[in-house]
């Protein structure tokens, strides 16, 4: 058995540990040591030819991009096992290690402890294994020339996102224009949304049957706009339920949603002229855990056999588990979510489904408030622009005339 190679590698481990300690003063980089130990030995590794440092554009002045030309010795199976990046304040010139990169990597971002306006120098050492004439090997850290001084700069506008801003301003302006138009009494046509029109009938059915109505507001927190949309619909459902004197239950999977839903329902019951009918325990928290929540809601559906169930908000794998149980319990079910993967499940198991954007349009549709309806028009205006842009882009790209997407990149 050839023992020379393992011994060489072992030696390399100790050597790099010692070398790192000597150079860093802050302890060895064990990871790099092991990297070096694994490399195939070659002779005379070459340093990095050049190092450049530049301010990372479009940021808050907290990062500098360091790039270097790869060492000519850096090839697959070669001696170079990595690079060690050093930084120094331009006025002191004392270099300290700020990080390592693997072989064949030629850049890093220095994003820690970078002060805007302060000049820094960077140096990149090649870490390599050298084989000696007697067959032994040792490790080397071959330093490069340092870069020219560079300082991070605070940018006040991210130009990479210019197009996002332009589209945002156009669509927001259109939305505000239509809101104002609606306020002035302009005619706003909104097509019928079957699922929302069925709300009254669905609750009426529960009243006739003397059973409960369940409202499930999804499994995300209040920072998800789908949950907000769901809660907006709950307001309307609560008002109808209060009017019909039908018991409405709202099991939630987030505490904040519970608090918000209570507040919303309290208001709905007050508006319906039945503030005393509202009880806080109509809205209750179960658990944050996705399937534990699904199990708990399923349990209540099976035991209570509600006549009507609403699913409005963000749903994931539990969507079918809930809606199939509701279906088996004989409930009329109305669902709405903007999670595209869950839509097929709701469509299969529910009587009505609000598809994606319909969920967001629902509260405006229900309220019939001109300002809210106006915002829907703004949304449609945006969609029209996108449709035209897609059509134009596809035609031009198909005809091999120009790839428009290159001008609209957003990072």
């Amino acid at each position, binding site marked *: 058995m050839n023992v020379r190679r393992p011994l060489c590698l072992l030696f390399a481990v100790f050597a790099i540990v010692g070398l790192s300690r000597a150079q860093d003063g802050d302890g060895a980089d064990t990871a790099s040591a092991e990297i070096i130990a694994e490399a195939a030995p070659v002779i005379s590794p070459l340093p990095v030819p050049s190092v450049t440092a530049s301010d990372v554009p479009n940021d808050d*002045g907290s990062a500098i991009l360091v790039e270097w030309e790869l060492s000519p010795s850096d090839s697959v199976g070669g001696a170079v096992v990595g690079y060690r990046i050093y930084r120094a304040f331009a006025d002191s010139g004392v270099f300290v290690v700020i990080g390592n990169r693997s072989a064949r990597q030629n850049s890093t971002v220095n994003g820690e402890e970078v002060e805007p306006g302060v000049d820094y120098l960077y140096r990149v050492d090649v870490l390599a294994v050298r084989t000696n004439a007697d067959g032994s090997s040792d490790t080397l850290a071959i330093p490069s020339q340092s870069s020219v001084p560079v300082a991070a700069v605070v940018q006040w506008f*991210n130009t990479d996102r210019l197009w996002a801003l332009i589209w945002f301003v156009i669509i*927001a302006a259109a939305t505000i224009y239509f809101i104002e138009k609606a306020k002035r009494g302009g005619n706003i046509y909104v097509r019928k949304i079957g699922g929302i029109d069925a709300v009254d009938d669905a609750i009426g059915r529960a009243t006739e049957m003397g059973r409960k109505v369940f409202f499930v507001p999804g499994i995300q927190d209040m920072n998800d706009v789908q949950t907000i949309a769901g809660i907006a619909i709950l307001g309307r459902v609560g008002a109808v339920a209060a009017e019909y004197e039908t018991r409405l239950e709202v099991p939630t999977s987030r505490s904040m949603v519970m608090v918000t839903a209570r507040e919303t329902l309290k208001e709905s019951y007050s508006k319906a002229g039945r503030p005393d009918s509202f009880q806080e325990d109509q809205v209750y928290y179960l*658990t944050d855990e996705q399937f*534990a929540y699904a199990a708990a809601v399923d349990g209540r559906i099976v035991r209570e056999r509600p006549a009507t169930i609403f699913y409005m908000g963000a749903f994931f794998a539990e969507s079918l*588990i809930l809606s199939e149980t509701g279906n088996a319990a004989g409930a009329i079910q109305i669902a709405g979510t903007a999670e595209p993967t869950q839509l097929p499940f709701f469509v*299969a198991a529910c009587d009505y489904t609000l598809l994606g954007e319909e969920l*967001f349009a629902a509260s405006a549709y229900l309220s019939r408030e001109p300002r809210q309806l106006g915002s829907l028009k703004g949304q449609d205006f*945006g969609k029209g622009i996108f449709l035209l842009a897609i059509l134009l882009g596809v035609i031009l790209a198909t005809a091999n005339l120009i790839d428009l997407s290159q001008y609209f990149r957003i990072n």
Partner: protein
Amino acid sequence: MRREVPLLITFITGVVFALSYFIPGGWLGQTERVFGDWITIVQAFAVWLGVLNLLKISLIKIQRKEHDWGYSVVIAVCLVGTIAAGMYSGFAPQFESFRDPETPFNFIFRNIFAPLGATMFAILAFYVASASYRAFRARNREATILLIASFFVMGGRVPLLDSIFMPIIDGTFFADFAGWIMSYPVTAGQRAIAIGIALGIMASSLRVILGIERSHIGGGN
């Protein structure tokens, strides 16, 4: 004031988050980070709000011997028991931390919680089958196209059709075809839905930020 303060907070937070997307530096970026931290902190503390509410409701049900109060006993015992096991695991000197594999908390996690959760997820397979059997019908032309596509995707995403037709069609024709359906028609559909949803989110967010939509804070003017 009960309405104005939340509306003002919503407006300021919304504007800061929207602007900091375009303006990375200065106080705006710092404020965005602070708001981000607040969200994390509030979310973490809010868990207790829910847990205590669950305990309160369960205990009231047990005390009043309400309908199905036995389930509330299960909830209360499991809740208190798991918290106690977690506390013990965290503070008992023989354990490195409460994530130590030997702790009672980990025992509950691995032997009770994990199998129960996996069981719930597994139910999905059964429900997919029953829902497909009941509802996946070729009612019209569009539905028929969907049905045919689903046949190829279900049979092609797993090596089912390729195994059956192996003597006739060599290679992975059906898998490739299912891959094509996923990569092109499905992606096109997903993008269309995603654009609609993105615009819906934008319009909804504007309504919330501008205070037009206020049902989430109890509605009213």
